[in-house]
């Protein structure tokens, strides 16, 4: 009967706020022009995670007939200082792969890195442009894809499988 008499004060203790170290709040896709210059940075940022406020998405403009070095950065900015999640992906490179799909006809994105099995990862890329066009770039990160499936090593996501950890869409213009 003890718990009945004490019930008025009986309430849950303050929940421990979890350390959301796995969360990815930010994706930066930086394209540095060959031969130097200011990088073009595509950014997806959702500082409070899945719920709450909507994310902010920043697209970018590329030059025609140019070559860029692409570099992806994943951050958890809920932590202070921000935690670099790119390292986690790099450490488990065989289990991860980025895919790049674009609807802009003048853009080509090629892998510029490899895991220990010689399969692409996609943290580093070479981006080349042709004529003027507009459209979107979709960046997808798959966890545990089948990297040996047909077309996957050349960046075709169709047979990759696995589960999607990231899927963000940026507006892009080539002019």
């Amino acid at each position: 009967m003890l718990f009945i008499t004490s019930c008025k004060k009986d309430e849950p203790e303050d929940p421990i706020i979890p350390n959301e170290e796995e969360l990815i709040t930010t994706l930066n896709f930086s394209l540095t022009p060959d031969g130097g210059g200011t990088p073009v940075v595509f950014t997806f940022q959702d500082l409070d995670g899945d719920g709450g406020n909507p994310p902010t998405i920043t697209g970018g403009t590329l030059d025609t007939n140019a070559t860029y070095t692409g570099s992806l950065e994943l951050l958890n900015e809920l932590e202070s200082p921000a935690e670099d999640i790119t390292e986690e992906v790099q450490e488990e490179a065989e289990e991860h792969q980025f895919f790049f799909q674009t609807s802009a006809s003048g853009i080509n994105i090629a892998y510029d890195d490899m895991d220990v099995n010689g399969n692409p990862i996609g943290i580093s890329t070479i981006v080349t442009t042709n004529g003027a066009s507009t459209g979107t770039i979709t960046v997808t990160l798959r966890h545990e894809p089948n990297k040996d499936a047909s077309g996957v090593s050349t960046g075709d996501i169709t047979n990759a499988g696995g589960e999607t950890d990231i899927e963000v869409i940026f507006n892009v213009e080539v002019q």
Partner: protein
Amino acid sequence: MWKFSKYVLVCSVILVLPVLTSAQNCNLAISGFVKDVSTGIPISYANIFVKELQSGDVTDSLGFFNIKTVCAGKYHVSISHIGCETQDLYLNILTDTTITVFLDHNSQLLNEVAIVGQGGKVTTQETQSLNSESIAQNSDKNLATMLENISGVSIIKNGSGIAKPVVHGLYGNRLTILNNGIAQSGQQWGVDHSPEIDPLVANRITVIKGVGALEYQGSSLGSVILVEPKKIAREPHLHGEGRYFFESNGLGNGLNLELQQYRKLLAWRMVGTLKKSGDDRTSKYFLRNTGNQEANIALQFEKSWNKKCYSNLYFSSFNAKLGVLRGSHIGNLTDLEEALERDVPFFTEDNFSYSISSPYQKVNHHLLKFHTKYNLSEKQWFDITYAGQYNLRKEFDVRRSGRSDQPALSLKQVSNFIEVKYQNFLQRNWEFKSGIQINRVDNTNLPETGILPLIPDYIAYEYGIFGLLSKKFNTTTLEFGGRYDFENRKVATVSTSVPREIIRYENDYDNLSAMGGITYEFDKGWKATYNIGFAARNPKVNELYSGGLHQGVSGIEEGDPTLGKEISIKNTLSLKGNVNNMLFFEGLFYYQNIDNYIFLNPQDEVRLTIRGAFPVFKYEQTDARLKGFDVATTYKATERFNITGKYSYLDGYDLRNHLPLVYMPSNNLFTELNYQIPELGKFYNVGFQINSRYVFEQKKLLPSQDYVAPPASYYLLGLRLSAEKQLPKLRLNMFVRAENLLNETYRDYLNRQRYFADELGFNLIVGINISF
């Protein structure tokens, strides 16, 4: 030296005595009749076996048996008949003895219960049950799948190993499951959380397809499932049962051991179960990571202090690791759309494996119950019960950087329950029962996940008081009752906005429930029953405060803190009886209105996250109507041959939005043909069964209500062969079952993995049950 000779003396007395008496009288007879408990009609072809004599008799067409030339002494006598629970008697034979044994025979054809439950409460509500015989012959199944052949019961599955029962379209928090009289306390809100109960500890599993469970604490809106362990038989010797099964699909193995002994000082019973299975197989491919492992134990002690006071202590521990199909673990809507288009799920492998890795669930549930019954007189008593439950649920997902070993969901629930009940059989067939109940539930998220909790922490106090009254006239039984509940719930959760902060809520609910029922018995064993019940269910924390991504269904689910309680009115009308004891019929019609029915409604909004776009579902309320019927009929062509058909129909409708309700069971038709042979060579009670299940397509849903149309109808064929054999000291009970005999490829609407994979293909199960 003195001690030794005394020992010898005692022994020789025991040994010599029977010899002496037998020399005097070995011309005694044990004879009698075997009859059906509900109708009193004689049962022919029942087997009577006397262990000490290694012989027996079979009843004739009058249900009569006669075992002659028996010496005086004590004997273990077992009376068995196919499909019935074997009755074991321990008789002290001094003179010619005539006994009448009642078996639950005819009623078992339709899973009807003839014997009133413990405590002798007469109920007008429709009850159906599985006896220990059917539990033993389905020892490979879990609690929900065991109940599947009871009409009106369906199951919601998440793959093959995770299943929860659905009665008349209601499940989870709307259906109370009582384990040994105690409402199961765990995370019932999850559609993919199966009840943490080992059915092999039970002697009887009963489904009350009722209108109100006023006697029990819990949030039932009508139906209740009772899992009841056996009372320890008043038998001084050590007795027990050992069971083993093997199933070809999933290469499953199971072992179950039960021991019991009745001593005046203390009676005890112990049951232990071990189960292990690996990847199941559809008609075409293995389902990777669908293995299960279980280790359970139950201990039971009973003690009569004196003629008035009796106590029992019960402890059970359920521990399971349940694999979830690897290919059903997906990231976002794009992944789901891709999975829907595939014939074979992602991650499917060519080889079988026992290994279980992420995603999987690890569940522990412990129950401790102490019950004392104090008799004021033969017709009046108190029951005082304490029960403590500890439920731990951890769910593991595929995660980055070795975090797959860290649960993504980790919930602990501790509940403490006290109940005092009073029962009185008054004059002129009045029966009165009442009680008070207090329950405290403490639900905590363990902070090891590194993820915002899906449901909040809370401490809830539930107080209940009830009264039930029934009266039996000549042909009429009346029952009515009322119940009052008060619940106070204090909630603490973490905000989804940043900076993360703690938000607190407090809910108070008070509810009144009531029910009434009348049964009228016509001539020749036909009876009709009408019941009406009024009940309420408080919104649960997941419906109020959950918020976040539900991985398995690729949706963001959001609670609504302003939800009110559900209010239900359910009517049932049943008719049952038989024609010339040949044709048995049972029909139950129900009509239930649930005001403020809580459901997940898909929103027009799509939410953008870093993982892509997700559809949003919100908990909303509407007015729901469930109507349906269960009919079952058995034709007993001869003593040896019978045929049974059962059909269940259900229509669930959202009255406010003018839409069908989602997740309502499909209509289904079950038939079985039984042929039984009392004696065949060295075997007896040999049974042969062909059964079939036809599940209709759920055609009522609109295309906008699901990602993909409900699966097509399907037809499954099964076989069962069972036999018993008596050895000098042991009784063997064997079965072979074949399921999905034609290796059909099919999917079921109530299986949440229907988006990803087919159901199980052919499965052969072999089981043996040894009792001593």
